[in-house]
């Protein structure tokens, strides 16, 4: 068998279409993985619904990807206006006065779901808002104290996971500088047309202004929902999520006043929702709503919140059934387009990129490998769809136009399963490739006011054990607060010029 097991031929050239923060990071990742491959980036026509490119926040997964690619968090803090989000505060979802908080990470595994279930069980109805703060992240957000954990596994901050938000332009410039260092090519010409190979793959992209053509072995579509490349591939079909998600119109306000907060907000309104993402260079406000309800309310909300001019974007919610067709891979909004809740569009883009790195094709695409990529990407997307749907499972504001629209949604079988399991057993089923941890998912459902009853196993725990777990959790939260400086102080200590 000595002829076997040869490394497959490396791709000679890869072309990335789309020069936003998704496209450039993709080029960086590919070039680092394939230092002998020519990697070229070209822009794509502007697309307002390319949320993964336009919104400056992601989820914790991105921090890991950045680490792997040598993009340091400190650089992002010092040069791209990055700040930390520990939790999201949901307001008005379960009732007009409702507030709920959820963060990231697996929490304390010793406490587990049984504990969450119990916590819900002992909390009396109507008192939810004053429930004790039992997670370090929520305690830190409430007191405005934090500094990133320093790697010491015994630190009270060690288990805290977080997401970053940043200034999109500064972040992109930082990526561009890195891309140039790595020798990534940039052709500042829009694509005009494609040339196909005999097999129906793309052989080259012809540039505008008679600027020639770029041939490649592999093409990456980072052009956003217009799917500049994918729309030219037979076999790229869209699975519509219109029945599963209510919002198909989004207003993104120009950045507002700087806000230094460890939490972001998701507020439900009678016409949609408002996401306020804190930022040292200005708060980002996003309002999503069903187009059928008109944009007057959205505008009123943004203006009411002090926002100026807003960009409107239309969404056709859905995902490509197969985001890897022929020799073209769609990443981010090109693969799945949906209402932008809290950094999930970029999170998905980065997860897909990471999957592509794991299953990186050689010069010739192996159909089986492509199938495996599509199988996993599809699982990722459908779990994300369910996660988004979770937001609408139990709106507590009857009689609003938005609630009326939401009541027409249909739920996927997997979604029905998880919500039923959560409600009756305090249990979160495991979904392969899900972009959120089961613990994060159940914490979010609870934050939305979708309560769960304790499992039989949780009920069997002694009151004493539960009291001691509650005590442990409270101690951990207190220890975290004691260990962390005021967040602003920490920032000042690391920024080149003091003052924010």
């Amino acid at each position, binding site marked *: 068998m000595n002829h076997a097991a*040869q490394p497959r031929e490396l791709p000679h050239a890869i072309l990335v279409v789309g020069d936003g923060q998704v496209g450039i990071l993709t080029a960086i990742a590919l070039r680092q993985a394939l230092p002998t491959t020519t990697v070229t980036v070209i822009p794509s026509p502007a697309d307002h619904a390319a949320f993964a490119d336009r919104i400056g926040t992601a989820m914790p997964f991105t921090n890991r990807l950045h680490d792997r690619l040598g993009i340091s968090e400190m650089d992002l803090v010092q040069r791209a206006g990055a700040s930390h989000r520990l939790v999201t505060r949901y307001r008005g979802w379960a009732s007009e006065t409702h507030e709920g908080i959820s963060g990231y990470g697996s929490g304390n595994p010793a406490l587990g779901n049984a504990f969450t279930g119990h916590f819900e069980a002992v909390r009396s109805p109507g008192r939810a808002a004053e429930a004790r703060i039992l997670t370090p992240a929520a305690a830190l957000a409430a007191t405005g104290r934090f500094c990133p954990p320093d790697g010491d596994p015994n630190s009270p901050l060690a288990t805290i996971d977080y997401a970053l938000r940043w200034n999109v332009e500064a972040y992109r410039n930082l990526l561009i500088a890195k891309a140039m260092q790595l020798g990534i090519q940039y052709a500042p010409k829009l694509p005009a047309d494609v040339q196909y190979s005999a097999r129906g793959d793309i052989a080259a992209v012809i540039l505008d202004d008679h600027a020639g053509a770029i041939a490649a072995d592999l093409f990456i579509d980072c052009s956003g929902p217009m799917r500049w490349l994918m729309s030219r591939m037979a076999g790229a079909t869209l699975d519509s999520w219109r029945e599963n998600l209510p919002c198909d119109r989004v207003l993104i306000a120009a950045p507002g006043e700087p806000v230094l907060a460890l939490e972001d907000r998701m507020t439900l309104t009678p016409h949609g929702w408002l996401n306020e993402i804190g930022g040292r260079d200005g708060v980002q406000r996003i309002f999503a709503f069903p187009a059928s309800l008109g944009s007057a309310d959205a505008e009123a909300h943004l203006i009411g919140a002090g926002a100026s001019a807003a960009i409107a974007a239309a969404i056709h919610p859905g995902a490509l059934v197969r985001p890897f067709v022929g020799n073209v891979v769609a990443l981010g909004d090109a693969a799945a387009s949906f209402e932008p809740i809290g950094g999930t569009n970029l999170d998905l883009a980065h997860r897909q990129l990471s999957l592509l790195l794991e299953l990186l094709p050689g010069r010739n695409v192996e159909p089986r490998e492509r199938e495996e990529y599509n199988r996993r990407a599809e699982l990722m997307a459908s779990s994300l769809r369910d996660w988004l749907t979770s937001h609408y499972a139990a709106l507590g504001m009857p009689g609003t136009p938005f609630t009326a629209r939401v009541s027409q949604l249909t739920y996927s079988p997997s979604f029905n399963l998880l919500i039923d399991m959560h409600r009756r057993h305090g249990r979160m089923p495991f979904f392969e490739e899900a972009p959120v941890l089961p613990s994060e998912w159940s914490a979010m459902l609870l934050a939305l006011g979708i309560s769960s009853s304790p499992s039989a196993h949780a009920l069997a725990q002694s009151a004493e054990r539960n009291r001691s777990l509650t005590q442990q959790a409270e101690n951990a939260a207190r220890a975290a607060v004691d260990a962390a400086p005021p967040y602003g102080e920490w920032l000042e200590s690391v920024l080149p010029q003091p003052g924010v």
Partner: protein
Amino acid sequence: MSNGGAKPIHVIVLGGGTAGWMAATGVAVMLGEQVRVTLVESEDIGIVGVGEATLPHLRSFVESLGINESDFMRETHATYKLGIDFRDFGKIGDSYIHPFGSFGEELAGISFHHYWLAAQQRGDAGPISDYSMGVAAAVANRFRPPANDHTLGSAYGYAYQFDATLFGPYMRTFAISKGVERIEGKVIEVQKDTETGNVTTLLLDNGQCINGDLFVDCSGFRSMLLGEAVGAEWEDWSHWLPCDRAVAMPCAAASEIIEPYTRAIAMPAGWRWRIPLQHRVGNGYVYASSFIDDEKAADAIVAAVEGTSLADPRILKFRAGRRKNSFVKNVIGVGLASGFLEPLESTSIYLAQMAITYLIELFPKDGKIENADRAEFNRLVDMEYDRIRDFLILHYHATTRDDSPFWDHVRTMQVPDSLAGKIELWKRTGRIAKYSEGLFYDASWIAVFLGQNILPNGIDPRVSVPDPGGMARALSSLKHAIDMEVATMPDHRAYLHSRSERLAPQL
């Protein structure tokens, strides 16, 4: 927490084999006052009494019940297990260990085996087994519990090899101490509610009637409640897994060495196990009755064992497959009553444990069973069975053996599409289809593919990037580090004997 004085749900477990006592203990300990647990078993019928090799998962089960490991090992005459040594599977003369643990470490996001395959082609690498702590320790007959850190000394797992006739009784004593009621008697009739079809009562040969709310069927192959009473359909897999009998024969240990691993040795019409316990060695020939008759199989096992036999060869009959649903009406099948996959990878006790865990997670708190809970239980159980099934079939199919009609059959049979896809992906790209749920992950698949000579034609293109000299040095220093670490581990027998609490008295 008490259940507020509500009447406890009465759980009846039918069957006192390994599955029955595990289920009764698990439910009683984990659900406390919400349940009352009664187990019915019949000495006339007895237990299957085999099932000696386990998987690491059993440790967390035993631990979560509050059972002390030494205690448990002493009472079941247990030894430690680091993996399984497969012999003569890919071809006669082959031997490889499928360890609890992986090979090497991923580098720059690419699995170790890609680098290894490339280095192997250049003649720069030893066998893949050189780069696994679990394999190295097993081959050296050494054992020490893995470290609880991220060093090499933590890079393996372990399970137990124990006496199957002692495990049930041990769990029985423990269960009774936790309040499980035991009833001796043979069930002769099962009564059902005419309206709902739920099982209501078990009638015993001594005239006793046992009523319950929820029935856990651990009656073994007969599947008296799940199969017979509520009629769960059988899905047959014998066309892929043709072995349908085993002839078991324990023997005395022929040498001082106690291997910290199980052996699976391919035979002309199946394979045989060899499982070293503290006081003896378990043996058995698992065979396909359509390819060999019982007598010849018994002769073969008698001829094969190394030590003095301790009992006459005993024949067991079974079929590969599972119930299409394991939770029907108010009956949950656990253990052999729910399905059977041959013990090639010691998965049966794991499957029972898994079903018990899911039952506890989905337990109907108020006694009312929702369809959604049955559906979820069945989805999970099917997923576990199906993934193990494909992995087992691979052991037979990945062979060049053409020395007997049995091997001709399994070599040339059509495998399930789900498996065919995985083999093809591996052959073309050296990649393993990724699943995070179910039992066997990439390291296990890699062990069997490579161990049975299925090499991929293409591997990750990126492995041609690093400098080959550096790779060769990295491989040799990994092997060196593993050898050094193993050299500090005690001999398995010596480790067992170093603490008398875990030794059975007769030793």
